[in-house]
């Protein structure tokens, strides 16, 4: 049986040149499906990597007790109370590792199109490099507190004009000087500017921290930290681990992008299947005589059928590779922007694997009916027809 399959398949493949047009049809249809599927899903994977790449389960985001969706606005006086809770990590000098953030929007002009975009000045404090190890300067120097100085993210420099060291950012009637640039492991924060949290709050007249993150001794300390936090009646606050917080905030958005990708590629797959059916029926039609001869000299119907499916797969797989390659060359690592978040699109091995599963399914659905038709070629009739 196996020998038969190999023999028939190799006969098929030797004559494939005479059906080059039809093979091309399958190849291009599959390449189109795979290319579109990967390009659309690369958006979600890229965003997910940018968001969760720097997230740590050992960090807790402080949220409101009633509405858990957004970070809580935390007053200055609440922070020392939070710092005393069990499980909070401390640095060598005994300071609690608590990241306090302020945030203020500024206008930025996109390179190329000249569109206005709203980006963030994020106020950060001195524990940032210790809490987020991916954060470090790549040029210039750190901002100083109490003066209006900023450092700019790597992606913001790529995406917007006027983001070089020495440039000034004008907002609320005052100028901020850019003194350095930073990277943060590809996080979406790289699409904005960082300044000193207290300076940003006083300049923007914000009384409370916009977000507070607490570094815990380990991820395992989260339950006791959260329990102590919620048990404190003076705080009215709750906490979520950073990965959980990101998931709650963006999970439905990921799902939306996924659905768009699956929907569009799914419709295209129906088209590819009908193209594959057409091509393989034609191939079987063309080889009717040959198949009848094979059957007459003793090859089984199953071997013939399986060889047709294999041929479909062997033509579809190079198409899938082509589609994946084009998607990879065009979009892997290319910048995308959604809701003000800038990130690199990413085509990962997992995505490529998914695309190959799609290819196999398309080949099977498109190749099986012609394969069955091939197995059913009436030997005597086909031979007599010549």
């Amino acid at each position, binding site marked *: 049986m196996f020998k038969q399959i190999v023999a028939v398949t190799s006969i098929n493949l030797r004559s494939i040149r005479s059906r080059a047009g039809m093979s091309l049809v399958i190849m291009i249809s599959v390449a189109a499906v795979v290319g579109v599927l990967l390009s659309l899903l690369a958006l979600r994977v890229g965003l997910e990597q940018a968001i969760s790449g720097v997230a740590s389960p050992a960090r807790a985001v402080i949220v409101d007790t009633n509405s858990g969706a957004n970070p809580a606005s935390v007053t200055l006086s609440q922070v020392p109370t939070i710092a005393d809770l069990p499980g909070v990590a401390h640095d060598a000098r005994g300071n609690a590792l608590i990241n306090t953030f302020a945030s203020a929007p500024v206008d930025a002009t996109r390179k190329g199109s000249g569109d206005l975009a709203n980006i963030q000045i994020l106020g950060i404090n001195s524990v940032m490099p210790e809490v987020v190890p991916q954060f470090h300067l790549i040029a210039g120097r750190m901002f100083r507190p109490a003066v209006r100085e900023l450092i700019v993210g790597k992606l913001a420099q790529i995406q917007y004009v006027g983001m070089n060291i020495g440039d000034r950012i004008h907002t609320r009637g005052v100028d901020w000087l850019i003194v350095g640039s930073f990277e943060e492991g590809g996080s979406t924060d790289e699409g904005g500017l960082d300044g000193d949290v207290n300076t940003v709050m006083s300049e923007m007249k914000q009384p409370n921290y916009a977000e507070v993150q607490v570094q815990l001794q380990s991820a395992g300390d989260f339950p006791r930290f959260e329990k102590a936090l919620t048990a404190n009646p003076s705080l009215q606050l709750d906490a979520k681990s950073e990965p959980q917080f990101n998931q709650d905030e963006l999970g439905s958005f990921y799902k939306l992008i996924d659905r768009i990708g699956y929907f569009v590629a799914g419709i295209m797959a129906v088209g590819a299947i009908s*193209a594959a059916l057409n091509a393989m029926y034609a191939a079987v039609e063309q080889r009717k005589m040959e198949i009848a001869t094979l059957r007459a000299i003793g090859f089984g119907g199953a071997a013939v059928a399986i060889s047709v499916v294999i041929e479909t797969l062997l033509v579809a797989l190079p198409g899938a590779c082509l589609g994946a390659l084009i998607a990879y060359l065009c979009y892997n690592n290319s910048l995308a922007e959604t809701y003000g978040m800038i990130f690199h699109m990413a085509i990962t091995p997992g995505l490529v694997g998914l695309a190959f599963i799609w290819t196999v399914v398309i080949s099977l659905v498109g190749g099986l009916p012609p394969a069955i038709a091939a197995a059913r070629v009436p030997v005597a009739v086909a031979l007599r027809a010549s």
Partner: protein
Amino acid sequence: MKYFPLIWSGLWRKKGRTVLNLISILVAFALFGVLQGMTSLFGQSGSDLKADRMIVVNRAGGLLPISYVDRIANLPHVRSVNFRNLFVGVYQHPPQFAVGFGVDPRRFFLATPEYHAAPQAIADLVRERQGALVSVQLMQKYGWKIGDRIALKNLRDTASGDGKGNWNFDIAGTFTISGNQPGLGPFVFNNDYYDQGRVANKGTVSTIDITTDNANLAAPIANSIDALFANSPYETRTQPAYATVQDALKQLGDVDYIAHAVLGVVFFALLVSVGTVMMRGVRDRTPELAVLKTIGFTDRAVALMLIAEILLLTVVGAGLGISITYGLMPPILKTINLNFGGLPAAVLLEACLVAAVFALAVGLWPARRAMRLEIVAAIGGN
């Protein structure tokens, strides 16, 4: 027309082949309808708002003091001023959302002519402190009736109302919205009632809408408003009302680019697949075409017949595909809370154009081949 039976039988010479081609074409046009329909829906959202309508928001993305309303009203060329307080409510449980605006009812319906409410309904709302006027679509969605008391949870301010974000409104009437406004439509209620039930942010509003007396002066008026509040704790940004709608949609990403790229790929693949199959069909039919020529059909007539065949197939496929769009769009749009009001004429026209160009592109090669066919060689060759 008298050749129609001939074209028809040519098309159905190989049933399976034609049906599969039809499916490919149908699928491509269904996708065309969905993607182009979405982008045109996004592109035209708010485009029926006139240039004399502008919207003032907090530059830093927060609220504005209600005192700004009167200060803006005193500026030259400002014809009317109106404010809104956004209320994002959940009915019973998420995701049953109901969006409302806290307004000064008389002012609101005067300044927003696309909202149509009976004068009696507006008067009722003014009288009933806890009243609300609800858009007809929103009424239908949740099965509300005039006179119902509805309970909503305020998502944006969970300390307001009863202290836990719960609010009651009595439905005093309905209104309709004209023009191409996607979505369920909001409900409107008395801002006085709302403001009293707030703990934080008393005396603030979400947006201030203005109408100018001269659309050509929109830019200088916007500048003078923003200059008035520059360097205050609540700086403003004033922009045309349609710009805010389109900006919000642009945030999602370059929808136009994605749609066009996908459709480009789809139609390229379709061209290759249908073209190849058609070419093969003509090759199979070489003797028949030669016979046609023998009995007196001109080269051009044979070629035209093949093109007509492909055109017919494409038109039927495109027609079916676009009708599928009409079935697909409502559920898709429902997930983002938009209503489907049919594809715009421009998209339908575009589909016709694409179908014509596609049929020509696919048909040209087979037609050329058929035209150049030498009778003797074609019949003799077989």
